């Protein structure tokens, strides 16, 4: 290191330490967002420069002269050596989705501090490490997928177990994302109209890019974007027109049925017609909005009004039930660590890497970027008045359905707010009500609208920005639902195919429709259950999603640890072992509490028992409206409990496989990892 770079890095470290100190210790009325942003940026820079470098040189021993799969199998299509920055963009666009925007918003109920610290430490020591190690393992194995690598290193049974885990995550993920959309669109004609318009706009783009001007992505995206903005502006007239508004005014139940029908039809349509064009729109809009939000935060430098730590760390919070440990670490999955990334790091990215040493910037660096996106979501949520935040995120069962009851309930928790302020907030964003719009997206939208409107347009444009933010989230969630339903359909066909081989034929209409129907009903079941849940659904589904996502991350880290042991690098195995153990503890504790907690708000079994006891005396508890509903609630509880038990069992099984493989590797005198031998490029 030169003197100059030593001085620069010392300065970064000092600035980071000061910012972190201010974030952690400040107890004033409000704190400026800049301190959170600086604390995160400095920590991430230091981590990339020192920790990632240590992992690259000592632990993984990246070798710049070793030919990558892209060089060895170059076909200009799937495998092609790609410039580092270009590939970074591709990888980041693939990993950044709705997750890092929702988790921090929910976690904000405990204050900005716990979530921020986990986002910083989690990304640095767990999330980025996972992405980096999996990417490296895949490059060294001809770009194989996570499932194939687990099968090769841990055995066939472990591979199948992991794949079932992935399928479960997929279902819960799709349900929870669909729920986020439903919550944002419920009785909101403006938002529903704009989101509905994305379908004809995408089809138009698809026809343009297929037949009129084949492959002109730029042109079709610009056309799509302009039409989308027109729809957004026109949406306000729809909402204000008494004859048009009812056409786009739906309840949560109606919207969830529509989403299921949409998921079914969209995933059997040809890809060029709907999925691909909307993917272009949503990808570019996502990147643009993230850049815009970052710019907005730097220009406006808003104050955070949420306290550093609220009393809800004890688990009594209205947004999600459960105490800080383990539920904070489950709630913020993406942004700190996300098992889903292991699928992407072993997907297209390893097949395009030009040089092994680029894996550090792409694998580790892109995750830090996602951590930063999550920090911005935290900033957006905590710049809101806490009273507004809780009005948006608390279920109707706790705050009622009128501004008066909500203001009274929230004020009684210690976050003073008046009914007039709540009404004003709804008017500002052009909605009839902002109460109980759980799921994170609307909160983020209000936060973004506040930030962006103070940068451009002021109060006048606030409603526009709010609906823009809703549209942007709904757009990429719908793309995920469409793509996810397709992927699940193939996975289901593959799984059934192991018993009935003819089911594997992906061109067979019969098998297609059956597998699609299974996939849609699986996530649709959880979606509907979430929509009718009086606690808002997110309350139940998000922890399940968090547990399953962290479980996948845990599996990926176990794979990394096993590989390090097999390569006789056990002295460095703590790099992956420590986060794996931590995630194992978090998911198992959370799973245990979800199953066996005496508190019916947390434990599924306690909740089922409460309803069963009420049934004995023919009592009907909300949300049930009849005895049949009561039975359904109990069945749902048992389904959720079984699922939680299954996820816990998956973690334990994989931990056992991992331990066995490690012991075997220790007994083995030679390197036993199955890397592809070094082959010179053709």
């Amino acid at each position, binding site marked *: 290191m030169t003197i100059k770079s030593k001085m620069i890095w010392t300065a970064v470290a000092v600035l980071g330490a000061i910012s972190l100190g201010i974030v952690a210790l400040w107890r004033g009325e409000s704190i400026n967002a800049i301190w959170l942003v600086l604390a995160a940026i400095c920590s991430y820079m230091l981590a990339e420069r020192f920790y990632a470098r240590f992992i690259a040189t000592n632990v993984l021993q990246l070798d710049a002269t070793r030919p990558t799969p892209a060089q060895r199998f*170059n*076909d*200009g*299509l*799937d495998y*092609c050596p*790609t*410039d580092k*920055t*270009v*590939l970074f*963009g*591709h990888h980041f*666009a*693939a*990993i*950044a*989705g*709705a*997750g890092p925007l929702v988790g921090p918003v929910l976690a904000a109920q405990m204050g900005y501090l716990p979530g921020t610290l986990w986002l910083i430490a989690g990304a640095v020591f767990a999330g980025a490490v996972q992405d980096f190690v999996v990417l490296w393992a895949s490059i060294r194995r001809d770009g194989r997928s996570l499932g194939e690598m687990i099968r090769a290193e841990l055995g066939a049974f472990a591979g199948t177990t992991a794949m079932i885990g992935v399928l479960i995550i997929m279902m819960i*993920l799709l349900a929870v*994302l669909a729920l986020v959309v439903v919550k944002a669109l419920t009785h909101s004609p403006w938002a529903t109209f704009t989101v509905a318009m994305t379908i004809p706009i995408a089809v138009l783009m698809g026809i343009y890019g*297929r037949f009129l001007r*084949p*492959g002109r*992505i*730029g042109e079709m995206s610009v056309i799509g974007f302009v039409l989308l903005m027109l729809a957004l502006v026109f949406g306000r007239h729809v909402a204000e027109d008494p004859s048009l508004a009812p056409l786009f005014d739906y309840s949560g139940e109606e919207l969830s049925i529509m989403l299921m029908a949409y998921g079914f039809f969209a995933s059997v349509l040809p*890809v*060029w017609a709907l*999925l*691909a064009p909307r*993917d*272009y729109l949503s*990808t*570019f809009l996502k*990147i643009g909005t993230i850049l815009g939000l970052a710019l907005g935060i730097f220009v406006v430098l808003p104050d955070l009004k949420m306290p550093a730590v609220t009393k809800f760390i004890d688990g009594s919070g209205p947004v999600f039930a459960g105490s800080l440990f383990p539920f904070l670490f489950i709630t913020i*999955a*993406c942004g700190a660590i*996300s098992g*889903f*990334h292991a*699928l*992407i790091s072993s*997907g*297209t*990215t390893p097949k*395009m890497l030009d040089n092994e040493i680029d894996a550090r910037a792409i694998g580790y660096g892109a995750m830090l970027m996602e951590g930063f996106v999550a920090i911005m979501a935290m900033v957006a949520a905590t710049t809101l008045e806490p009273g507004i935040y809780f009005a948006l995120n608390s279920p109707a069962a706790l705050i009622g359905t009128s501004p008066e009851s909500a203001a009274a309930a929230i004020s009684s928790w210690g976050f003073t707010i008046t009914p007039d302020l709540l009404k004003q907030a709804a008017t500002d964003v052009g909605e009839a009500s902002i109460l109980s719009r759980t799921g994170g997206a609307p909160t983020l939208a209000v936060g973004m609208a506040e930030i962006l409107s103070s940068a451009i347009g002021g109060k006048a444009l606030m409603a526009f920005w709010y609906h823009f933010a809703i549209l942007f989230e709904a757009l990429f969630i719908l*793309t*995920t639902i469409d*793509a*996810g339903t*397709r*992927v699940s359909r*193939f*996975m289901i066909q593959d799984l059934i195919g192991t018993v009935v081989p003819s089911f594997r034929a*992906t*061109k067979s209409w019969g098998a297609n429709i059956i597998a699609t129907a299974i996939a849609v009903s699986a996530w649709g079941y959880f979606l509907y259950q979430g929509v009718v849940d009086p606690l808002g659904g997110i309350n139940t589904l998000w922890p399940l*999603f968090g547990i399953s*996502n962290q479980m996948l991350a845990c599996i990926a880290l176990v794979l990394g640890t096993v590989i390090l042991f097999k390569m006789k690098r056990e002295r460095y195995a703590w790099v992956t072992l420590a986060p794996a153990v931590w995630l194992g503890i978090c998911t198992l504790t959370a799973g245990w509490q979800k199953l066996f907690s005496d508190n019916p708000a947390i434990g599924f079994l306690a909740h089922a028992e409460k309803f069963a006891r009420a049934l004995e005396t023919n009592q009907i508890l909300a949300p049930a409206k009849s005895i049949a509903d009561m039975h359904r609630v109990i069945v749902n509880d048992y389904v959720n409990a079984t699922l939680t038990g299954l996820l816990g069992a998956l973690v334990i099984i994989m931990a056992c496989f991992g331990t066995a493989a490690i012991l075997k590797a220790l007994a083995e005198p030679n390197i036993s990892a199955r890397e592809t031998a070094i082959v010179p490029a*053709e």
Partner: protein
Amino acid sequence: MRNPFKISAASLARSLTRTARLMVGIPDYEAYVSHRRQAHPGEPIMSYSDFFRDRQASRYGTDGGKIGRCC
């Protein structure tokens, strides 16, 4: 050493276009063409619109697709 601040506007625009295209699963067509010319001389090369369709089908494709998508 190359000065990173001296990248021309044209190459920056090109790089941004390539990034944006790869984000939605369309790799560099010129790289494909030059690879085909060098490694497989005389063999057919897909036209841009065929290349585009091929990559689109492969990303969302009939065989499972590889659209990597996170939560």
